[in-house]
């Protein structure tokens, strides 16, 4: 943490890095939306007006200018500030249940619904499709 702050102080002293080309800037803005401001109440650095968020935005651009990939930049921030700053949680032994949950739920829902649905009418017992009284009300 202290090293991170020191590096931010250094960055602030040397000024913001040179402007990026539009494509890189778009990348930077997308990353800004995925990194959480460390002093705010659940805000990404793209939204925050805190000065540390401005410093973190500058840091994103610095890493992009240095040629880092998006994954490297995410890892860079997670190493400095902890996984807490990543609004897109990294897949790991701790987070796989989270990422697997929607698929598991969908599977569970499908299994629960399957017995209800039959392929075809069982024949004599079914009445003809009735008109829809509610729709006509």
């Amino acid at each position, binding site marked *: 943490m202290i090293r991170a702050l020191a590096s931010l102080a250094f960055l602030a002293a040397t*000024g*913001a890095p040179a402007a990026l080309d539009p494509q890189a800037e778009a990348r930077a*803005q997308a990353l800004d*939306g*995925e990194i*959480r401001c460390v002093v705010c*109440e*659940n*805000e*990404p650095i*793209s*939204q925050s*007006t805190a*000065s540390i968020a401005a410093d973190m935005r500058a840091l994103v651009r610095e890493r992009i200018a240095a040629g880092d990939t998006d994954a490297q930049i995410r890892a860079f921030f997670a190493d400095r500030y*902890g*996984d*807490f*700053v*990543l*609004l*897109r*949680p990294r897949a790991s032994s*701790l*987070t796989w*249940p*989270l*990422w697997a*949950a*929607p698929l598991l*739920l*969908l599977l569970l*829902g*499908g299994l*629960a*619904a399957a*017995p*209800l*649905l*039959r*392929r*075809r*009418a*069982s024949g004599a017992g*079914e*009445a*003809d*499709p*009735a008109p*829809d009284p*509610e*729709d*006509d*009300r």
Partner: protein
Amino acid sequence: MEGDAVTAELGAFLLSLALAMSLAQGALGIFAGWRNDARLAAAAAGTAQSAALVLLGAFAILISLFLRSDFSVAVVTANSHVAKPLLYKIAGTWGNHEGSMLLWCLVSATFAALLATFRGAMTQSLWSRAIGVQGVVTAIAIAYTLFLSSPFARLDPAPLVGRDLNPLLQDPALAIHPPLLYFGYVGMSVPFSLAIAALMEGKIDAAWARALRPWTLLAWTMLTGGITLGSYWAYYELGWGGWWFWDPVENASFMPWLAAAALLHSAIVTERRGSLAAWTILLAIVGFGLALLGTFLVRSGVLTSVHAFAVDPKRGYAILAMLSFFVGGGLMLYAWRAPRLSEPSGFVLVSRESAMVLNNVGLAVAMGTVLIGTLYPLLLEALTGRLISVGPPFFNITFGPLMALLFFALPVAPLLAWRRGDLVGAWRLLHWAAFAAAGAAVVVLAIVRGPLWAAFGIAVGVWVLAGVALYVWKRAGSFGRVAALPLAVWAMVAAHAGAGLFTIGAVAETSFRKEQSVQMLPGQTVTFAGRNVTLLDITPREGPNYSAQRGAFRVDDRAVSAERRFYAVSGMPTTEVGILSGFAGDFYIALGSPGEGTVGPQAWTVRLYFNPLVQLIFIGAGLMGLGGALGLVVLARRRLAAPAAAASAVPAA
């Protein structure tokens, strides 16, 4: 202050009285249901109505304490100030933990009174049991308010000034958003009461589902309105151009909404086919559980957010105990009684009811995903001490495809008949919607050059919208007869079309928004999103309880102003953004602070956004709410027509 000395005490007395009355209502109602006794049932109904009036009195007293700025009352001191405008003195009543809990009680009692007044086609025992359960819900909420967060607690000595309402909340939309959301949250207690009452009865039939639907629709419509207002408020007040952040507090209101939406559809199947009864009951219990969970998350201090007024672990435990009591008790009763509910053998795969099952699977999985995403960081921290964040990227990746799956089936369902549908016939109509969706995708990919997922998302929205239009066309048969379609059709059409418009707006805004932060000197012009923005000047302005810097801008040839306000009492700055709405989207300007950049002390930070089609999000959500309101009219009409028919069916007690 000079207010008479007993007002707050009178409020506390009325609250205690309401507690006793709600307990009596609970006992009377449940006993009346058990004995099927008409006189006891009438007594329970009367008690419910009186309890609501008593709570209304208590709430009126709290409002009057705020209006008179009686700083001997702790909650007034903490949340009000003499210089605050009248509207926000009133809104301050519920803009804090204690007052909002009193509102919770009032709303719960009001729903009990409504249930007591509008019996509709319910059998007497179901009706009185539901009133009884609703009485227990109200009583527990009042006990919590009275003993753990009383709004009538005094301060001694009384301070001379108050600490003011959180300035972010001093906004007209925020005066209405919380009560509407509360009506929605607490409204979910009525389906819960009806579900518990039905489990006590051990019998669920079409009449029960018919009784359930208007209450569910009422809660859903109010949740829709409350969430939409909150989102719109975030959009124009928080100054970052966004409208939804998947914040745990937003999720807390969204989960009951999803449960209510699923319940609306499953109740239709239960009413029309006498099927899915157990599932409908389960949804009603879970829906109220999620509403309570929302209260717990917001009020226990486990989250930090603009909504988290109370940071008191004792309160958190109490709400958690309440949640366990209602959900745990409800589920136990469910496990005991639900197996007795008869389920028919099944549905034909291609039928309206199968489509409704698909709808419920989709909504329930979406609800579960939001629930797990919201609770996972809390659980992980509790179990391992590791802090992680689950934010918008996770929800966009998981929730988006689930909704796409759901919306893929949406236009098909109304075209399928009950019992046995005709998929080929539906496709004969819907292939036009598929063409429209494919066309939209091509436009997004080839002309706008958007990413693949944006093309897919917009295509899904167009598919829903075109599918709904084709349904209208089919039902009417000709253009001339469109206006003569029954209101029930329009209710469904409005809600579904709203979902389609919302999808288009949400995908367009998320994938094509532009933003830029610039340092501007007065007189300077920058070009953004194809427009020339000039900062004309910045002038100071004094409001009733704040001082502001107003930036006057010119965007091409139109004037816009954006403000930065400073509330002296609470020491908080807020933004008032300037928005130019156009057909293609909103041009959105937020004024930052002066002299923080490298340009010099005269320069102001200005944040510029272009949010394409963002108004569709709010129009779509509003249309869903309108659909709900129209549906309520339809169900109310039917209910007025029903009692005569039902009265002859129910044997005299």
